[in-house]
């Protein structure tokens, strides 16, 4: 099949049985790839109410038709599972080079099921697929494992691995790849750890069939030329996502001390140019990318190096923890990567614990004797290690995410547990940015930013406005942006370099032989969005409107400092936003897709 690796690889870890089936053409037509494939298999194959960390849950890794192709940013793959953190749908996108090798090995999706009787890693080398003993790797950091396996097999072999966080099933454990890229959110690493699967090694040499080679070359070159000609290329290459730090600080969106404010008095030392000057050694790109936004940094004080930190990590492990030294943030980043826990959720959990400690809701004994205060980097490093190893009272408490931790501690701590649907909110303070707030509230995995990054729209049209156009903007972004995760390509080239999105369509047609338009793909995106909603409803008995509410901090607790001092979104406006959103989506007042909506989207039965 043009544009695809051609097979679905199924690995039963219970029995060690490995099989391949051809990728169904109807699946490619209806769900395209990546996140679409993942949700399709999750919905069809994982039993209702399966234990996320049990044998019935599956971890599905999928590439898309643009993955591994000569398309700017064709290095994305998607990891889908039932989330142990939220109990709902989890989907994490990962850059790097893994997806290209996977596709060159002829694989569109890897479906991992069951639980291995002993630690193993999956070895894929073209048609050769084996489970190999990982006893000697168990307990090692994810970066150490990658170094070790690359040494054994060679640099052309791509590795995805979990660290101790995944082994210990920390509910927001991540999967690490290419030393500093992650499938980060929702606990995909915990699911991999629950299966006793330490790593995946992949290498392939097969060609991907394309429908029209000349047209593919031309369309690919047009995309690369557009990137090269972009005025934004120089700055995005120089600073990557750290461009956002100073801007967020200026507009009051930089999470500060557990989202109690949106501007940080120590923020300037975290800005992109400061980081570039102080710690960045070189730039790093993913497969086929002309805009290497990743940064390798060296922390001289610690004698260490890391890929990063990215904006999200600077926000969540820097300002949100009151830390203003970029070397400290980068060191915390390294610990999270190697230990294999999501830096966003980790920052959210520790910030909440610090606030609890400072308010007297956690005692010195509860925090294992740490001087757990905002700005104390050493205490943060210690807390990260406790979480990843599930040691100490603090490590055990925080390893299950901030929602569960707050339910245990109580005493009002739920109000400043910054999460939605059980997922810790990523690094945008939304006290007064109503489109971004509704984006977080309705995101299909929990409080994550990348589906609909609408905060610029807030600033363009009035940040406190509560109006249908804001909701419409969020819905359009939610339908459209995740399609990059379906196609298997990075969205940065479109969204930040500003290249014309229509340039992708000739490439997609030349590769697959099927003419599609963005309007067509947005319909696929809408269908996927609604199917994810159905998944949440299916798995969680009381799922509904209350699950879409933000942390009370954003409607009850205005910042006292910074440019958003005194500003919140009133609770009645939060509810109005939801009303508008449900109406525009074609959902009922409790957030369930109506029968008419399901019929329009051909979702009245589980897709097959």
């Amino acid at each position, binding site marked *: 099949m043009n544009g695809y690796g051609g097979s679905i690889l199924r690995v039963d870890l219970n029995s060690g049985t490995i099989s391949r089936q051809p990728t169904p053409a109807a699946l490619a037509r209806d769900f395209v790839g990546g996140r679409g494939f993942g949700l399709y298999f999750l919905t069809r194959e994982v039993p209702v109410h399966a234990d996320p960390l049990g044998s019935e849950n599956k971890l599905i890794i999928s590439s898309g038709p643009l993955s591994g192709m000569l398309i700017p940013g064709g290095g994305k793959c998607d990891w889908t599972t039932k989330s142990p953190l939220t109990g709902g749908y989890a989907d994490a996108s990962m850059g790097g080079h893994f997806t290209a090798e996977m596709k060159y090995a002829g694989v569109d999706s890897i479906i991992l099921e069951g639980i291995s009787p002993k630690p193993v890693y999956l070895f894929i080398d073209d048609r050769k697929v084996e489970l190999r003993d990982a006893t000697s790797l168990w307990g090692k950091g994810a970066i150490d494992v990658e170094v070790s396996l690359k040494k054994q097999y060679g640099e052309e072999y791509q590795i995805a691995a979990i660290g101790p966080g995944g082994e210990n099933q920390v509910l927001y454990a991540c999967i690490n790849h290419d030393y500093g890229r992650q499938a980060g959110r929702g606990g995909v690493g915990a699911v991999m750890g629950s299966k006793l699967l330490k790593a995946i090694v992949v290498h392939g040499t097969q060609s991907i069939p394309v429908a029209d080679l000349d047209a593919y070359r031309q369309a690919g070159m047009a995309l690369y030329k557009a990137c090269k000609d*972009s005025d934004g290329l120089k700055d995005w290459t120089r*600073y990557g*996502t750290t*461009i*956002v730090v100073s*801007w967020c600080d*200026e507009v009051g969106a930089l999470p500060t001390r557990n989202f109690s404010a949106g501007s940080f008095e120590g923020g300037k030392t975290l800005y992109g140019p400061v980081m570039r000057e102080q710690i960045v050694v070189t730039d790093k790109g993913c497969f086929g990318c002309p805009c290497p936004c990743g940064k390798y940094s060296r922390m001289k004080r610690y004698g260490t190096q890391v890929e990063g930190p990215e904006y999200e990590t600077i926000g969540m492990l820097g300002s949100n923890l009151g830390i203003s030294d970029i070397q400290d943030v980068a060191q915390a980043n390294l610990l999270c990567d190697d230990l294999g826990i999501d830096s966003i959720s980790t920052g959210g959990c520790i910030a909440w614990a610090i606030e609890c400690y400072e308010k007297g809701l956690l005692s010195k004994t509860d925090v294992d004797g740490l001087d757990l205060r905002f700005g104390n980097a050493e205490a943060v490093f210690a807390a990260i290690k406790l979480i990843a190893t599930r040691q100490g009272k603090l490590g055990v408490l925080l390893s299950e995410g901030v929602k569960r931790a707050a339910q245990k501690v109580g005493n009002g701590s739920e109000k400043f547990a910054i999460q939605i649907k059980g997922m810790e909110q990523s690094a945008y303070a939304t006290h007064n940015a109503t489109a971004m707030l509704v984006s977080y509230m309705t995101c299909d995995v929990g409080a994550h930013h990348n589906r609909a*990054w609408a905060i610029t729209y807030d600033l363009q049209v009035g940040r406190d406005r509560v109006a249908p156009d804001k909701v419409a903007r969020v819905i359009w972004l939610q339908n459209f942006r995740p399609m990059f995760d379906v196609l298997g390509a990075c969205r940065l080239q479109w969204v930040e370099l500003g290249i014309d999105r229509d340039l992708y369509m000739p490439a997609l047609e030349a590769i697959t032989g099927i003419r599609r338009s963005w309007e067509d793909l947005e319909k696929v995106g809408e269908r996927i969005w609604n199917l994810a909603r159905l998944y949440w409803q299916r798995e969680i008995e009381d799922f509904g409107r209350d699950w879409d509410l933000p942390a009370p901090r954003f409607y009850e607790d205005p910042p006292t400092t910074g440019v958003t001092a005194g500003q919140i979104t009133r609770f009645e406006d939060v509810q109005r936003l939801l009303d508008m959103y449900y109406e525009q989506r074609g959902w009922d007042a409790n957030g369930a897709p109506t029968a008419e909506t399901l019929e329009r989207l051909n979702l009245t039965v589980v897709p097959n």
Partner: protein
Amino acid sequence: MTATLRLVGPLKEYANGRSELVVPSGLSVRQTLVGLGIPPEVVALVVVNEEQQNKDYILQEQDVVRVLAVIGGG
């Protein structure tokens, strides 16, 4: 007494698709943006003669200024 202002990405929409404008020197970047109808808060990065500056920087003659918005996030 002019400087050159380059608008990157979506900021071009504020200038009818044009990416390069000649603007008076002597004003701050912020004042210049307001004069062009560009909300200063949507601009994430100001680079003057290849050095990052803040929006209160006063434009000098023959400065080449690049302003960049973010629409995708971190």
